[in-house]
């Protein structure tokens, strides 16, 4: 039970493994099969994320928001979720998506500028990326309330960043979640930065976790680079919520190891020393050391995982890149259940002008004549 034992107002942080992978709390006694899954997904996530950055650099993808360094705070909760639980993500949760059955090729396609990436596969209980910061929070609260009302037994897991906790929507959403005792777990990935704004300048609040207390929601500060701590904390939060004990809040204390997005240059606002310090706290490094000590991690297994990941990523890239072009209809489809007359007219106009082009953007001559 971590509930009640870690006071965010005092800055207490729940941790199971230290940065070197040594147990600093009671052995949680997790099944080795589960532990292997935790590691496997962190590695898959890391490699997929690195590939995405490469694709962007090669001009095969648009602006991308890397999640490197945040794998533990994504994998722990994702594996603690049940089949019927719902994900309300932010925009940096590639790894969570993969685990929750939102295929990697969709995520790549999203950043390749293709709206079809948002057509969440049937059966996948997740919303697509939320770009306007913190807007998912009240929506997640409402969804959780409805799921409870329907007696579904499902829990909503809602992600946001540290900067997101400054937005009004964050506060309104949390307050609603509390008032209506909704079955939701809110996770703020405090990766220390909101683009160039450091956590300390974002709020005078000592921790992010304590913000939930003002809405009557228990909050814990968890070492977000410790996948065991994240798994256990999320599991407890999800169980509480499922048992009708209301929402739960986790501040995952982690680090954005890369740029905010591929369009950003962190060299402008943070030091290499700070980055190097956090490299040592990396979630994969630490969990691997722990698993190695337990005889679970071996170099052969690592090689096997890397080979599997490469194969999976390659397939996903191929799928994403081989999706055929879109048609003018795709711009107008799905606006309403039924297309309005104005949209029909606009579609016809677009089709006509594309079919009868007489000059391209860069050209200097018009094909058609004038009266």
């Amino acid at each position: 039970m971590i509930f009640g034992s870690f006071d965010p107002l005092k800055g207490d942080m729940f941790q199971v493994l230290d940065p070197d992978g040594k147990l600093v709390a009671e052995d949680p006694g997790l099944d080795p099969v589960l532990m292997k899954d935790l590691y496997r997904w962190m590695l898959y996530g890391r490699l997929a994320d690195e590939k995405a950055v490469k694709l962007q650099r090669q001009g095969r993808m648009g602006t991308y928001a890397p999640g490197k360094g945040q794998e533990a705070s994504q994998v722990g909760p994702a594996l603690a979720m049940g089949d019927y639980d719902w994900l309300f993500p932010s925009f940096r949760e590639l790894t969570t998506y993969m685990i929750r059955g939102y295929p990697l090729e969709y995520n790549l396609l999203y950043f390749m500028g293709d709206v079809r990436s948002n057509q969440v596969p049937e059966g996948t209980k997740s919303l697509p990326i939320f770009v306007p910061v913190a807007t998912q929070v009240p929506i997640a609260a409402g969804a959780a309330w409805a799921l409870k009302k329907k007696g579904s037994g499902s829990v909503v897991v809602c992600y946001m960043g540290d900067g997101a906790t400054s937005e009004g929507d964050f506060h309104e959403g949390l307050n609603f979640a509390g008032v209506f005792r909704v079955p939701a777990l809110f996770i703020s990935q405090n990766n220390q930065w909101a683009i160039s704004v450091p956590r300390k300048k974002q709020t005078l609040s000592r921790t992010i976790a304590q913000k939930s207390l003002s809405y009557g929601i228990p909050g814990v500060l968890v070492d977000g680079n410790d996948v065991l701590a994240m798994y256990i904390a999320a599991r407890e939060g999800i169980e509480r919520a499922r048992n009708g004990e209301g929402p739960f809040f986790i501040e995952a204390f982690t680090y954005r190891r890369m740029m905010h997005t591929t369009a950003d240059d962190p060299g402008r606002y943070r030091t290499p020393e700070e980055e190097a310090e956090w490299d040592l706290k990396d979630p994969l490094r630490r969990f691997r050391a722990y698993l190695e000590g337990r005889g679970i991690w071996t170099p052969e297994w690592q090689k096997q995982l890397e080979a599997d990941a490469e194969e999976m990523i390659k397939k996903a890239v191929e799928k994403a890149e081989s999706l055929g072009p879109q048609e003018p209809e795709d711009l107008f489809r799905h606006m309403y259940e039924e297309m309005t007359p104005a949209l029909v007219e606009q579609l016809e106009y677009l089709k006509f002008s594309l079919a009868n082009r007489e000059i391209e953007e860069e050209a200097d001559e018009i094909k058609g004549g004038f009266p």
Partner: protein
Amino acid sequence: MNMVQAINSALKVEMERDPSVVVLGEDVGLNGGVFRATEGLQELLGEDRVMDTPLAESGIVGFSIGAALMGMRPVAEIQFMGFLWPAIDQLASHAGRLRNRTQGRFSVPMVVRFPYGGGVRALEHHAESYEATLAHIPGLKVVIPSTPYDAKGLLISSIRDPDPVIFMEPKKLYRAGKEEVPEGEYTEPIGKAKVLREGDDITLVGWGSLVPRLLKAARLIEDKGISAEVIDVRTISPYDEGTVHDSLEKTGRMLVAQEAHRNLGFASEIAARAQEKMMDVMEAPILRLTGFDVPFPFYRMENWAMPDIDRIIKGIREVLTW
């Protein structure tokens, strides 16, 4: 200077001239803004003149209103127009109303500036054009430059303006071209359209990102013997209908182009005012070339969503042959 540099220069000139001018917003300090519009300003003027704020748009605008009420001249940056929405309450309920509802006792001299529009392969929510929504709010002025020179002169005027000014920057044009821009101070008038090219056969009206396309279209049809007048509206609120109507008087035909959605865009206002007052000189209906009534699409489809040179040419022909 390109447009971002011109904006940066305007901020610098005004901040050096008037100590009550402050810049605030997300990432505007050390990072110099995500488009670098405030680059170097914090270093020059300090952290209490160029302030990184928490991530909260309603906070940024509300805070600016409060500061303006107490005699400061805040210039707030919103990172992208798509993220302005949380601040609309502050703009509509307070910035645009305070002078009127206090019957002149208070006023809100502030600027809210942000990049808008598509064409840069941006992510979802990073390419919107909702200028008409803002122009619809009484009490706000809405300024949209299309050149580096105008950007600087209009931004200086906006900062000096006694009322709240929304300053919309076409991000597609941020680095699209350079022109001679004076280092020092100068102003361009708010509420005044600019005739960029004279012509007799048709009036082409636009603002912001579409102005270069209208100019190119005018140049191309000149080879076909058509003479087009091109007007950059520059301020959509207050709108300078006089300049546009004078042109219409001469040409009798008009095409208005906007990147924004079609339904209730500012082109509709321009057309409505022209038909109310200029019916007797009009030789053809006014044509609106617009975006579509769909969310601005992901970048693979973005070129379809904006009036391009081809559609402008087709539109001109349609108006001329009516």
